[in-house]
């Protein structure tokens, strides 16, 4: 192992900023990051062992104890559940003879849950040693069990197990009009960079990750900073459950995304860019590297681009942490640290990567910017609403006949989208993922727009067979799992929310428990440090607002019910006293 780690560190030029990349390779090789590995690595990277430990313990894809040679993770998104994940998981446990969270005795296979893996249109999905598995069903699990028992290398597994389809269903403004490679840069340079920034301003383009900050303004701010070492970062950490449009953009339109990044570099004066790709999209890396190589060959990347510009792009992978979609947490992660959101101000445009001015934009934002450079601001602004110009690319999944990618002008009604994707008997929609809004079937005249229903791309349809409380339950557990733990209201609050909601859903709630739940929601929403905590209560708040009777009906008709199972709590005492008579048991309440 010493030689392996020595070579690995050398390959990464002993850069501590590459810590996640290095740890990914150690995990892939040894299926955990041992204490010995940490001791070897720390001096090579000239960092404290505590920094490595804190990174290992932060990211879901790193483990400090050995996992199986085949690390199997099953996506726990609500959409996977709607496709039968629960039963499938039970089947896997039986078939592979391994418990959830466990490693099989022979060390060959380990099994666990993972947050949404971005395959919601072709689930139930999973990951094996980091590579995406789609359309899992019992026959496929049987085959996988066989492959594992025979210790067949992943490279020799059937390709269809790893097949990821684009499922592009509806083209719009952007997807209809691909730009020719290099056209965006050439047009921008011919027009002038200032004039091109003015076109982007004129287009009204706002950040497509969901927050909606004006793109031109961000680029302008960054270009005005005194510090001239500047960075461009493309946020491809698409972790919001139900979102997979960046997966498709990067699979089939990566040239235009990289062109948008290069355009940004020309405008803000940057020599170096990063594509921060979520670890779940490991399967895209080779393809993306070859696109980057092609662009270097075309003279569209690297030194002396179109005789005007030096700029190159490096791909960096995440390791299973939703919080890294938050731009300052993403920057921390790029620097080789745990993804903990920074205090703001200062904002990344003035102090981002390594403390230098940095533009962080979503994949779709760069993709749109490249098209705007070619076609002009008015072309883009002619579509959409007053406050939301242009189009939005949605990833639609859940209860509909045609899940996949749809592009719509802003201002399109929910009803039109539902008709297009073949949704029937609809109960409601989750717009913008768990951090967004749940709307009921009484609201389908509402519009896709920053000023009405904003989304980073997630659009999940639920039909009338689904339970509102199951949805809120899944999302609330998701946030408690993904909270980074930095601030008190989110660290403790999301766990309390999970506990309080479980109490009600499990039928232990009594009068006052819904009020307590709502109070807690407001506290977490108001006081949390970043967007994760500020939106973690949305699944409960938006469903409670619409279906208060549903929550109330879960409550027992008594004034107070203990929040835990009284009788179960006595189990230890019974065992120690060697008693199991009636007197050694307690009823949950006096009323019962």
């Amino acid at each position, binding site marked *: 192992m010493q030689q392996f780690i020595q070579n690995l560190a050398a390959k990464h030029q002993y850069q501590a900023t590459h810590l996640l990349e290095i740890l990914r390779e150690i995990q892939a090789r040894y299926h955990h990051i041992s*204490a010995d590995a940490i*001791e070897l690595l720390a001096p090579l990277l000239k960092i*404290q*062992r*505590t*920094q490595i*430990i*804190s990174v290992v*313990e*932060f*990211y879901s894809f790193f483990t400090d104890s050995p996992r199986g040679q085949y690390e199997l993770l099953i996506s726990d998104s609500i959409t996977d559940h709607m496709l039968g994940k629960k039963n499938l998981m039970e089947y896997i446990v039986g078939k592979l003879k391994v418990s959830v969270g466990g490693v099989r005795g022979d060390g060959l296979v380990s099994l666990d849950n993972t947050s949404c893996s971005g395959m919601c249109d072709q689930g139930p999905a999973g990951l094996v040693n980091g590579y995406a598995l789609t359309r899992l069903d019992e026959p496929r699990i049987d085959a996988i069990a066989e492959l594992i028992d025979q210790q067949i290398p992943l490279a020799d597994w059937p390709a269809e197990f790893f097949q990821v389809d684009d499922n592009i269903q509806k083209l719009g403004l952007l997807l209809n009009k691909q730009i020719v490679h290099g056209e965006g840069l050439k047009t921008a340079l011919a027009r002038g960079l200032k004039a091109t920034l003015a076109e982007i301003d004129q287009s009204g383009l706002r950040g497509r990750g969901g927050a909606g900050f004006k793109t031109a303004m961000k680029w302008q701010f960054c270009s005005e900073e005194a510090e001239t070492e500047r960075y461009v970062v493309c946020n491809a950490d698409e972790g919001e459950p139900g979102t997979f449009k960046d997966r498709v953009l990067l699979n089939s339109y990566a040239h235009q995304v990289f062109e948008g990044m290069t355009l940004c570099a020309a405008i803000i004066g940057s020599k170096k860019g990063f594509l921060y790709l979520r670890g779940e999209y490991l399967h895209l890396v080779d393809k993306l590297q070859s696109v980057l190589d092609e662009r270097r060959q075309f003279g569209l990347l690297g030194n002396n681009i179109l005789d005007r510009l030096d700029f190159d792009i490096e791909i960096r992978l995440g390791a299973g*942490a939703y919080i890294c979609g938050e731009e300052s947490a993403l920057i921390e992660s790029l620097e080789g640290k*745990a993804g903990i959101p920074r*205090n703001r*101000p200062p904002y990344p445009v003035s102090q981002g990567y390594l403390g230098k001015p940095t533009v962080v934009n979503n994949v779709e934002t760069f993709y749109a910017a490249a098209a705007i450079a070619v076609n002009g601001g008015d072309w883009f602004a002619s579509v959409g609403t007053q406050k939301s110009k242009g189009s939005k690319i949605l990833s639609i999944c859940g209860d509909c006949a045609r899940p996949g990618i749809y592009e719509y002008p802003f201002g399109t009604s929910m009803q039109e989208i539902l008709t297009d994707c073949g949704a029937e008997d609809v109960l409601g929609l989750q717009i913008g993922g768990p951090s967004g809004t749940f709307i009921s079937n009484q609201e389908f005249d509402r519009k896709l727009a920053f000023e009405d229903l904003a989304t980073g791309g997630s659009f999940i349809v639920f039909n009338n067979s689904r339970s509102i409380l199951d949805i809120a339950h899944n999302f609330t557990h998701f946030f*408690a*799992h*993904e*909270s*980074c*733990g*930095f*601030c*008190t*209201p989110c*660290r*403790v*609050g*999301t*766990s*309390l929310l999970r*506990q309080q909601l479980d109490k009600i859903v499990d039928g232990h709630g009594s009068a006052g428990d819904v009020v307590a739940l709502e109070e807690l929601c407001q*506290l977490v929403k*108001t*006081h*949390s*440090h970043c967007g994760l905590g500020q939106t973690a209560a949305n699944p409960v708040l938006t469903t409670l607002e619409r279906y208060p009777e549903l929550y109330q009906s879960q409550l027992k008709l008594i004034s107070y019910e203990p*929040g*835990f199972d009284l009788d179960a709590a006595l189990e230890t005492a019974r065992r120690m006293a060697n008693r199991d008579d009636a007197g050694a048991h307690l009823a949950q309440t006096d009323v019962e």
Partner: protein
Amino acid sequence: MTKTITIDGNTIPFEDGQTIMEAATAAGVYIPHLCHNPEYTPHGSCKLCTIRVNGRVCSACTFPAAEGQDVLNNTKDLNDDRQKITQMLFVEGNHFCPSCEKTGNCQLQAVAYHLNMLDNHFPHFYAHRNMDASHHDVLIDHNRCIFCTLCVRASQQKDGKDVFAISGRGINKHLIVNAQSGQLKDTDLEASDQAAHICPTGAILIKRTGYSVPIGERIYDHKQINEVSLAGESSALLKEKDHG
């Protein structure tokens, strides 16, 4: 001309580069806090210093003061929420004030009294946490850690060491020490280090000094935390260091 902000309607001067916390403290206005200490880089994690700046929720310890800010600090709504955030810290760990040797010198306890916290409100987590008594002079009781990182910062910024770090994610956050064994005795921590004395709760304690000052004669037995804080946190710390 002096630049000013208003806090709860009172005009307060500030200098460029000051945070709202710094401007407030200099003007004798107390804003509750736990992870903040004027001698260290602000952290902004405990969220007790939550204020409203022109309506927007901010952390006073990290947010820069700027001309024209209208700050709300000592309001019923904010203090109610601060009380709940303090209660969150109490239920997350295992804090048994009557049996804790830090009682009376504990900032968590003192801020809870200041905010009139009379119960824990939320259900307890009953987290299983360990102690590290391996070091000859210093004890870590993880039950009482609130992840404020003051020991981390003190070790780095004052002691020129790197003894502590916070690891883990979400509710699994925990304090770790910089030793291959994971034990405090194998770090270069010394009892005279600032990091050994900075803990606002009883998570890091100097051994054999717990009761050298009797209960009833301790810092917060006679003074509210706002008085002590405004009188200078550093002098309070020195006093604690002398008297245990």
